[in-house]
């Protein structure tokens, strides 16, 4: 009897693991969301790219945004840390509340300090070394103390699972790294400034499967301390790394729910069609 129970316990994880990420079962839906998006639309030169988006992002959860090309996933993501500010002709409407405060009314620099971003293509600063890239955000914000920079750099590179590969070559140019290493460097760089929320815009689309696996593993670890929003084309990836999934289509949010629910029992037909590969 006792033996049987033990066997079951050890066997269960191996079966469940590849399909879905470990879900946290103590979520209270009433909990105040870290980031709350209300009626958000983005207009480029008079045309709505996305409209009327309502979604909440919670602490220590990863939310995946999926949908076909051009559906507005990245547009929504970039609205979350005011990246549209630098695009001429772009306008964001609606409310995005960070801890209850509308980011559209905050200083964009402050917003981006709290909401970091990792981009689709690795974009390390080409004139800087690996070390300088990692601490660039700190230096830009006036941190000078050498010992602190070193400490933060090691910590961030450890978290990004890159430390062991670069610890002996921190002074080398960042561009000497491989594509996957560069992307992990960019993640380390984003984490070094200790944001509260990490936005990831298809962070693995330019990487090979091995580098992708490393970054997905990383997202799992990062969830412990960050709120993560990840845009992805890859539905398996969404299933593997996220707790919640939002499906977007033609600039609108069709449905968002627990990842398991979206993938096994979606309420909307469009979602089901997309998940099952009938379009997109």
């Amino acid at each position: 009897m006792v033996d049987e129970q033990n066997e079951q316990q050890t066997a269960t994880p191996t079966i469940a693991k590849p399909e879905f990420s470990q879900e946290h079962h103590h979520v209270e839906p009433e909990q105040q969301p870290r980031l709350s998006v209300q009626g958000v639309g983005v207009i480029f030169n008079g045309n709505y790219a996305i409209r009327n988006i309502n979604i909440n992002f919670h602490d220590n959860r990863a939310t995946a945004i999926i949908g076909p090309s051009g559906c507005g996933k990245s547009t929504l993501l970039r609205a979350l840390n005011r990246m549209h500010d630098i695009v001429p002709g772009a306008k964001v409407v609606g409310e995005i509340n960070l801890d209850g405060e509308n980011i559209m009314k905050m200083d964009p620099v402050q917003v981006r300090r709290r909401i970091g971003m990792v981009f689709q293509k690795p974009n390390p600063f080409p004139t800087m070394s690996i070390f300088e890239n990692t601490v660039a955000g700190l230096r830009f914000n006036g941190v000078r103390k050498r010992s602190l920079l070193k400490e933060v750099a090691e910590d961030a590179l450890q978290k990004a699972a890159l430390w062991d590969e670069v610890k002996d070559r921190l002074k080398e140019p960042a561009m000497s790294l491989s594509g996957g290493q560069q992307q992990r460097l960019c993640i380390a760089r984003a984490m070094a400034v200790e944001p509260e929320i990490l936005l990831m815009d298809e962070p693995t689309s330019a990487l090979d499967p091995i580098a992708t696996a490393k970054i997905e593993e990383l997202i799992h670890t990062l969830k412990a301390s960050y709120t993560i929003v990840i845009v992805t084309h890859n539905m398996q990836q969404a299933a593997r790394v996220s707790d919640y999934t939002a499906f977007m289509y033609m600039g609108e949010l069709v449905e968002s729910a627990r990842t398991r629910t979206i993938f096994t029992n979606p309420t909307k037909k469009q979602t089901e069609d997309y998940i099952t590969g009938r379009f997109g």
Partner: protein
Amino acid sequence: MSQRRVQFKQSVITRRNLVNRLMIGLSGLCVVLALIPLALILFYTVREGISALNLEFFTRLPKPVGEAGGGMANAIVGTLIMMGMSAVIAVPIGLLCGVYLAEYGNNTFSSVVRFLTEVMSGLPSIIIGIFAYALVVKPMGRFSAYAGAVALAVLMVPTITKTTEELLKLVPLTLREAGLALGAPRWIVNTRIVIAAAAKGIITAVMLAIARAAGETAPLLFTALNNRFWHTSLDQPIASLPVQIYTYATSPYDDWHAQAWAGATVLIVIVFVLSVVVRLVSGGKFTVQQ
């Protein structure tokens, strides 16, 4: 196995290869053609000037007509002084102008500035000389090194502005976004990321502008004028290599001709050495492909 539906004719492939080889050959030929004048100028200048290039040339003032010897020491120093002063005026203005146009230049004002810059870079240098004459020489009441430097600076600004703008626009937008996403304010992104990434190219562009100004004669004719002696202060007329070369080359004396050639050689060497030194000592640690 299915039959290929599209068959490429062998004759087409042969012709393409031929055309390919022909065009590569033509490009190579054009490179050689472009280099011939450069090599000839260098060779001819040095050959004609070598007889007058000696220690005295670098240390002595010009001798009066009929006396042998003498040098262009005052002109060499004068040219270096005016190069320095004009660079101090023009580089910051041109650079900041270029940064503004590239990073904030999305308005009507910038379009106007951009257009005027184009016009200005096409302006004949003699006109710039007259402009500096009216702007500096007239109010001051005399020719001076300052006036010469202003004329050269006016000549340099449009070139520096235009190339800086173009080089900054080549820096990928993703780098700016990466900087902003780290919570860096715009000016930090511009200085530490964008300009840093384009630094190598901008330095080359600035050096080209300085080199071009260093060789200009026309803007100096009404501004710095010339001086057979050492200048006593910068608000006095000052000698310069181009004007000295011009004066000597148009004279009827053979030894002056030789000195004009020697002056030209020195001018070329100054520009060359300066470019190499500046490129060696400046710029970031890592080269960025432009």
